[in-house]
């Protein structure tokens, strides 16, 4: 395997980490008013992700940084073409970020309710934004020969991209509910489990749909394998959930995300960013990659950096492994 292909895989891996991890913390925010009926319950929900959401978000930052370093043209074209959707996405991430930290800082009902609204809305907007841009990247955006967008500010929004937006949002809802069933105890746990089971057929349908669209548009015979894995794992996850095995359901959803990412990036290859105007304008793994010296340097950094990240982030989840119930929450 040559270095550009390796870095294409690294970026897919970073997306996998991001979708798996921030997927459930988006989901928790998206379900905040649904599963959190009282202020204490909402605090239980927020505290399941309190120590980890920021570390989860860094996966996106590193995915962005790695794309910049390994495929500058990809980073430049995708980000500039998606300008307005990304502004909205950024505003949502800013809102979410401060909301978790600021929510409990003033003891007032109105104050906390306002931040609850920010968490709820921004989690939805961010999940939709991620799905939109990621799917547009895979199914293609109108690019000219220089790599600039052809068309207006919303040129990246296609029906496929909108379907992808629904897919990520729907997945985040289910993933978040399963995570909550795994991380809470008592009434919330039961409600989260029931919600996940009930919502799964509807919420995961767009994911299956968008993967099929991608498969028929760009996939190969090989990408059928991860695609089928997604469907099987998602179905099994619901089955395990019915048997009260939240841990297994969560792990199966993890495999499903991996399958989805492999389907998407496997179909994308050998392009990194296809042009819908003219295939000749598409950016490719070989064409958009940085020099082999830069990729070698980055490979060394990733070789030592990535395992370390996995170890200490894993340790964080171990430290905060205890289920949270309303009885754990201190009085404000």
């Amino acid at each position, binding site marked *: 395997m040559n270095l550009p292909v390796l870095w294409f895989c690294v970026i897919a891996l970073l997306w996998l980490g991001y979708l798996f991890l921030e997927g459930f913390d988006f989901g928790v925010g998206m379900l905040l008013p649904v599963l959190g009926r009282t202020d204490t319950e909402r605090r239980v929900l*927020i*505290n399941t992700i*309190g*120590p*980890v*959401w*920021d*570390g989860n*978000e*860094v996966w996106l*930052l*590193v995915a*962005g*940084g*790695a794309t*910049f*370093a*390994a495929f*500058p*043209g990809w*980073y*430049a*074209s995708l*980000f*500039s073409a*998606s*300008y*307005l959707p990304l*502004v909205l996405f*950024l*505003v949502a*991430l*800013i*809102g979410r*970020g*401060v909301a*978790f*930290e*600021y*929510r409990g*800082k*003033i003891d007032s009902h109105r104050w906390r309710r306002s931040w609850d609204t920010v968490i709820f809305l921004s989690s939805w907007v961010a999940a939709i934004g991620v799905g939109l841009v990621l799917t547009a990247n895979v199914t293609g955006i109108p690019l000219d020969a*220089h790599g*600039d*967008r052809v068309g207006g*500010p919303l040129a990246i929004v296609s029906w496929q991209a909108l379907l992808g937006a629904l897919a990520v949002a729907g997945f985040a809802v289910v993933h978040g509910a399963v995570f909550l069933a795994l991380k809470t105890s008592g009434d919330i746990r039961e409600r989260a489990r029931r919600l996940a089971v009930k919502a799964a057929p509807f919420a995961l349908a767009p994911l299956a749909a968008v993967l099929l669209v991608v498969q028929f548009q760009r996939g190969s015979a090989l990408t059928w394998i991860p695609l089928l894995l997604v469907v099987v794992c998602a179905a099994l996850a619901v089955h395990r959930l019915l048997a009260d095995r939240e841990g297994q359901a969560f792990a199966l959803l993890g495999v499903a995300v991996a399958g989805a990412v492999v389907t998407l990036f496997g179909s994308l290859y050998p392009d990194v960013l296809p042009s819908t105007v003219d295939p000749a304008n598409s950016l490719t793994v070989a064409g958009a990659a*940085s*020099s082999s*010296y*830069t990729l070698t*340097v*980055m490979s060394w950094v990733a070789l030592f*950096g*990535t395992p370390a990240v996995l170890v*200490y*982030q894993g340790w*964080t989840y171990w430290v*905060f492994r205890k289920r949270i119930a309303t009885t*754990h*929450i201190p009085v404000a």
Partner: protein
Amino acid sequence: MNVLDIARWQFAITTVYHFVMVPLTIGLAILVAGMQTAWVRTGNPRYLAMTRFWGRILLINFALGVATGIVQEFQFGMAWSDYSRFVGDVFGAPLAMEGLIAFFVESTFLGLWIFGWDRLPKRVHLACIWAAAVATNVSAFFILAANSWMQHPVGVQLVDGKPRLTDIWAVLGNSTVLATFPHTLAGAFAVAGTVLVGISAWRLWKAKADGPVFRSSLKLGAWVGVAAFVAVAVSGDAQAKLMFQQQPMKMAAAEALCHTEQPAGFSVLAVGDVSQPDCENVKSIELPGLLSFLANSDTSSKVTGVTDLVGQYRAKYGSTYADGTPIDYVPMLPVTYWAFRLMIGFGVLAAAGCALALWLIRRGRGPGRWFARLALFGIATPFLANALGWIFTEMGRQPFVVAPNPSGVDGVWMFTAQAVSGKLTVGEALTSVIVLTLVYGVLAAVEAVLVVRAVRKPVEAAEPDDTPSSDVFTFAY
């Protein structure tokens, strides 16, 4: 207004704003880690109270710093895509390294520290704040290495019209970053020290109850502030000497030095319009020979002025852009001239305040009401100095976004006008600058309210309950 101007305003607004939070985080994280170390080693509840009090302010500030930091990374691709295409082979690497090596550690271990009070052994919990604090500083290094490459490109070769990385150690060991990093770090500690002094002085005057906690904090802050100022001055001098060689136009613009002088004096204040590169109608109070000394460590040496440099730049880098419009090589002189002076002025004020605080509290004395008020306003001074320093160094580099390296690397430079995203519309750019500015404005107000409330809160010195039988968390959102 064109897209270029709007994109520049947006970058300026978001960066200067982000850099209000950053230096406080860099400095305060280390100081809080130090406070907690003192508590773990001595068991003195005063140090625990300090850790808790300043830790809360650190976190309020950190949250906004993180939130606004994401915008910075995305902005290069969004608004400056031609810049990103041009420099990607070099510039992306330090950004990716920052994420992978520093920012992951910072955000993960800060989460562990926030929620770990009753769930981690004391020393492991202490190690978490140190990991986060050190990572914050490492993060600063990588970002400054990226910025320094824009100021002074090294470690590259021009291949197919683009810089190609040939030596990563040259980029990470760039003489510019070796001078900029200590200068920025010292500036950050000046901020943290002054914040400690300002808030502690106010608390000491306001409520005597927590006297020992804020006396210790004030003393610590003042010493840090004074020491940081010395480091700022020494590193700043080194940086300036370097800049006289690497970007002579920037330093001539810092002085609004129109004509080459030998020896050159340092203009302390100017009356009149410094915006004209011909220096008519400007009366300036000068310290003779000082500029020569700053540039070359020699009071009688020659310093080249703006008008002569323009000729040299035109000969070397061309006199028109591709579309035929002439290139203006002179940065905005009123901005560079005044930003440079005010940076130094506010820095001196902050240090003087810290030194004065040490004198006022000698042998058990209190700071007094007038100083408490003064110190509270004085908190703004090091923030202003930091912001003005960045405004100076970035505006002084114009019209370049990647300034040419006058020795060593050939052909690598980029004009800001060529860097902006080609198809970005005025509507999009205006929308984003307005939306971001409004959101940032609201959050500034929120942060201010929260910090004021945190400052007014009584200190807590109750030992965290780390017995596993306890069911209620010591800390939860």
